[in-house]
């Protein structure tokens, strides 16, 4: 199992959310499972949560992620931010890069 630990910076930008998701996806390409420790994280903006969660859900289903990716030691606000992002994705909302360009 791959282990990832986040530092104690609030998680704010969509860019950083995408970076974390990309790192998780790369770890899942190498290993069967990954554990991400959020113990030091107190806050997460909607932008960060959406970029991270929607990037993951673009590759894996919720069930697959629950099996292969352990999101450990999350605070209540971090869980709530991620839940909202999951619900939005399941409701059909996508990141701008996940939508096909219209002409």
């Amino acid at each position, binding site marked *: 199992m791959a282990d990832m630990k986040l530092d104690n910076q609030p998680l704010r930008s969509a*860019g950083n959310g995408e970076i974390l998701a990309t790192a998780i996806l790369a770890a899942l390409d190498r290993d069967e499972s990954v554990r991400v420790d959020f113990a030091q994280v107190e*806050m997460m903006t909607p932008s960060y949560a959406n*970029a991270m*969660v*929607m990037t993951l859900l673009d590759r894996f289903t919720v069930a697959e992620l629950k099996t292969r990716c352990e999101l450990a030691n999350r605070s209540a606000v971090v869980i709530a931010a991620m839940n909202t992002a*999951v*619900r939005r994705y399941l409701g059909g909302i*996508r990141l*701008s890069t996940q939508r096909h360009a219209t002409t």
Partner: protein
Amino acid sequence: MPQTFSVSAKADGGEFVDGDSAALAWDVLRRTADHQTADVIDLSHCPHLKPYAIACLCGLAELARADRRPTRIVPPIDAGCAAHLARLGVPAFFEPEGWGAEPAWGTNVAVRRVTWPPGNEGERIVEVLSSRAELPAGVFPNMVELLDEIIRNALTHAESPIECIVAGQAFPHTQKVEVAVLDLGQTILGHLTKNPRHAGVRTHREAIFRALEDGVTGTPDGQRNRRGEQNSGAGLSALRAYCESGGGELTVLSGDVWVTSSQTRPPVIGTLYRPFRGCLVNIRYSTHGNLTPLDVEPIL
């Protein structure tokens, strides 16, 4: 001949919904709408300023500074108002011959200019306000997250020459916290219609309502925003839902329209004397209300 902008003496009720167009905040808004900088801003007769008017004043000062024409300020005669603005740090936005004072952190007011990339300004401001606001448990991080989000929205979408100004005040007696986020870049309509999905939006009113919906963004499909990031259109809708959940109000002002939404009545819509070149988001939390409880049963 120096151009002087004298702020009127009429007290600012700060109620967008009342639409008191003679109040001094509207003087400031009108001036800000046209990006009309002045050599002197005269607050002599100013009795009180709400956060959104302070944000506009500081925005005008920043515009003038960007034009290399720093604005001098004449402080209010009213000692209470002068002290209030000094505590906020407002004099720092103007020529030093105003009334010098270090901003006093630990009070119930805060104003900051935020530039890209934003740091912890949102958290710092909510910290200041929360010391007087007696926020219920768990509310602090949500307010910070959503203020961060709106600041990022302004810095990302607005193309504002002053980046953005954030001003906030806690009102302990009425159990309200008010925070204004101002940019002086493009209107919401201008930004939204860059996305072909919303190219059919014709009016500022329609654009504001569209922007308050979940999943609506001006970033075109398949693209990233000008900061190189992806968007999903969450910011304003998330803020609106959270703010309204506790009985608060959210006002969005852009172009020739302002819209105030709350759970207790249908949206109130007002028109502006002159189109506002930029966007002002005014958040009014009601801190004694039942803000949305956290959804803490993990899905992932």
